[in-house]
């Protein structure tokens, strides 16, 4: 009988167990690390048809976000400006620059500029820009310091966890509406907590955690 199972088989169950733990652990770790927008979306920086620099326009020249994204306070969608908005200045500033060829063409005969959308929620998510910016959620919360971006890069995951972090505790994120478009503003945690708690109370903020708040 002793020949049926050789001696090394005595340690087989232990080896199988170790193998299972390693493989299971690696799969879990890999899924947690990779199967999330923190990996799949963050860092996306497509090459745009025009090398528009937010750093120059927003940070150095100090142009307000809403000069170009003028729909953000009224609409669920924050618009890409029309070519005519660019041409308000670029009919004189850098007016012959080859970089602006597509803009001039678009302003002249309505040809579309194929900007690549960087920040994109899934189609089953209904995010509304206007309700957020009008209630003290700064652009910087979701878009990072886009005002200093030479090229727009996906900085925040925009995952459901990301939304819920704020919806569960809006006091940590709300700021004075006049500072919503000041992306460089630094607020200490203590100050934020104090100010945020006040806003949540005064404005009766009830950041919904109901599925239907975002999913329809």
């Amino acid at each position: 009988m002793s020949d049926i199972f050789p001696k090394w088989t005595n340690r087989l169950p232990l080896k199988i167990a170790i193998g299972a733990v390693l493989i299971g652990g690696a799969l879990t770790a890999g899924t947690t690390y990779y199967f999330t927008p923190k990996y799949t979306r963050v860092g996306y920086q497509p090459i745009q048809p025009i090398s528009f620099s937010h750093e120059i326009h927003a940070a150095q020249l100090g142009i307000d976000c809403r000069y170009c994204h003028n729909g953000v306070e009224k609409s669920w969608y924050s618009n890409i400006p029309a070519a005519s908005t660019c041409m308000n200045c670029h009919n004189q500033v850098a007016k012959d620059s080859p970089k602006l060829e597509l803009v001039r063409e678009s302003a002249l005969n309505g040809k579309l500029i194929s900007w690549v959308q960087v920040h994109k929620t899934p189609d089953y998510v209904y995010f509304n820009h206007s309700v957020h910016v009008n209630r003290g959620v700064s652009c910087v919360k979701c878009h990072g310091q886009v005002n200093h971006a030479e090229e727009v890069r996906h900085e925040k995951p925009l995952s459901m966890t990301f939304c819920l972090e704020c919806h569960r505790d809006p006091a940590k994120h709300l700021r004075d509406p006049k500072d919503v478009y000041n992306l460089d503003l630094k607020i200490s945690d203590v100050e934020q907590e104090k100010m945020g708690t006040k806003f949540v109370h005064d404005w009766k903020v009830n950041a919904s955690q109901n599925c239907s708040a975002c999913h329809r």
Partner: protein
Amino acid sequence: MRYFLLGFVLLCVLVVSVAGFRGSTSRKPPIEVFPDMDRQLKLRPQTDASFFEDGRSSRLHVPGTVARGSHFEGTPFNTGLIPGTTNGVDVIPVPVTRQMMQRGQERFQISCLPCHGALGDGNGITKKYGMAVVANLHDARIVKLPDGEIFNVITYGRGLMGAYGSNVTVEDRWAIIAYVRALQRSRLASVNDVPAEMQSMFKK
């Protein structure tokens, strides 16, 4: 067991070296696991829509129509003109409130400040970059301009200034005009406009 461990480590290294780390910059579009749910058969604003000839998912106004909720009646409030004429109305056709003035200041600083400057004197940041002729809003010519004329300059542009009709709403245009009037007044004020008890401060 040794081979298994070796293989396991190699596999981990392989996965990490191919997949990389979180947050590394990528030019390629994000991976979507269930693309049929993520991207549904509906049009999002300002995306390519091959269904339409011009490829725009956000449709332009059909000529001769007005959008729901838009201002269309030929009232002085909407056009800035005295009905039946091409002359601008003299004064803002709505009561000017403190709230409106503050709104005007905010809107001025968004849409007008880059060229006209915070003081309205035509010394905006764009001047440094080749914007040669920007109107000084304190010019006697502009101070005397009826409010309705300024409304039409904002709406349709004038000279090298572009049209802001599609960027600034009708209400905001009037609010901006109210604020511009306040800016002008600030430079035209005399010492007699100051409350009597404070006048001594300026009479040195």
